[in-house]
């Protein structure tokens, strides 16, 4: 897999940074999600669909089937009896949740095969998975419907950074030099590029036609109170990122715990006492989640 680096403007030295449009439009291979995901989505969105139908579609993709069954049978769900078919999985996990898990595996797979020296892929996904787990625990605690979407948000929140490392490594090197002078990595991105990984990731998800909920959750994970419609998504992801960063499970480039947006904290209405429970659960689930998702 390679990226169209030529599209990056190299003209005026003061204008050396690639525009965010160059980045998103230039990544041809990342232009779309696998068709199977859209097929699954169609069935899920159709109120007339039966569990058997979604089972039928997923079962056509044996690799995806195997992976989903592995996830459903892991401690991530903690069911006591073994789940052996996708149709069974749909009945106990739910259609929307299963679609979201299919999305998660599709995206990880998409990036998995990219050779690189710039980024430690495993460490990157470890941080993303830890963020997802923390978001999911918070979502369950807040009694949000489909807490699985917070897991997806955690997985996706730093996707823009992966794009930076892989598609414009020279520009990312300049960002890292700026970062070495102090401050946070996303601030350095803004200083050098005029935009940051959150924006890049959000735009990529939009290009993939993913729902606004996910787009906003990623786009505003560093400033959740500015999300126009989906503040809960952004706020949960924001707090989950801070927790994953505190645990130092994996790393997506940032060395420091990002500052907490107090507005976001208030929106969620969490008690600080609850944090130890989240950290405990994330630590307990992280190694197995890494095993089943990576």
């Amino acid at each position: 897999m390679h990226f169209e680096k030529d599209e990056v403007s190299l003209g005026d030295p003061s204008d050396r940074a690639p525009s965010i449009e160059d980045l998103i439009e230039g990544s041809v291979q990342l232009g779309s999600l696998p068709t199977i995901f859209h097929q699954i989505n169609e069935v899920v969105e159709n109120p007339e669909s039966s569990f058997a139908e979604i089972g039928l579609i997923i079962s056509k993709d044996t690799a995806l089937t195997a992976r989903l069954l592995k996830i459903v049978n892991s401690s991530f769900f903690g069911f006591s009896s073994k789940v052996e078919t996708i149709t069974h999985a749909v009945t106990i996990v739910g259609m929307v949740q299963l679609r979201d898990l299919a999305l998660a595996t599709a995206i990880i797979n998409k990036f998995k095969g990219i050779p690189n020296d710039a980024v430690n892929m495993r460490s990157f996904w470890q941080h993303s998975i830890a963020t997802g787990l923390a978001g999911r625990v918070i979502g369950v605690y807040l009694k949000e419907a489909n807490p699985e979407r917070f897991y997806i948000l955690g997985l996706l929140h730093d996707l823009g950074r992966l794009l930076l490392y892989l598609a414009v490594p020279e520009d990312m090197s300049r960002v890292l030099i700026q970062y070495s002078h102090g401050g946070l990595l996303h601030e350095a991105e803004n200083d050098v590029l005029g935009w940051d990984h959150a924006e890049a990731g959000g735009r990529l998800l939009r290009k993939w036609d993913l729902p606004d909920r996910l787009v906003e959750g990623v786009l505003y994970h560093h400033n959740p109170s500015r999300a126009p419609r989906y503040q809960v998504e952004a706020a949960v992801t924001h707090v989950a990122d801070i927790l994953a960063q505190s645990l130092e499970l994996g790393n997506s480039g940032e060395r420091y715990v990002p500052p907490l947006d107090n507005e976001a904290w208030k929106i969620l209405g969490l008690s600080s006492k609850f944090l130890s429970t989240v950290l405990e659960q994330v630590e307990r689930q992280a190694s197995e989640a890494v095993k089943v998702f990576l």
Partner: protein
Amino acid sequence: MANVRIKDIKQGMVLASPARDPNGRLLLSVGEEITDKLICTFKAWGITEVEIEGNGDDERVTEDPFSEVRAEQVPLQVREEVDELFRYTDRQHPAIKELVELCTLRKMKSH
């Protein structure tokens, strides 16, 4: 009646209000006594807190995690690592304060 975190509940405590899973399904009703097996079940179901009879003045319950260690007992290396990790956060914020304490304890255990 006191809200108690799962990690702090102990065998023999008594539920002051029903324990429900995140979907609201009843797992255990008022007056049931906590057993070790139940604690495992709560964890598996993602329950983070339950209400326990009594006013929570049992010191095992109200225990502040950081009170297990006193600031001067924190090794210099741990303190420096934690300070560095949290250098861009507002250490006065209650959530960050809690996180700093939890991370300090965690690092001390692994040292």
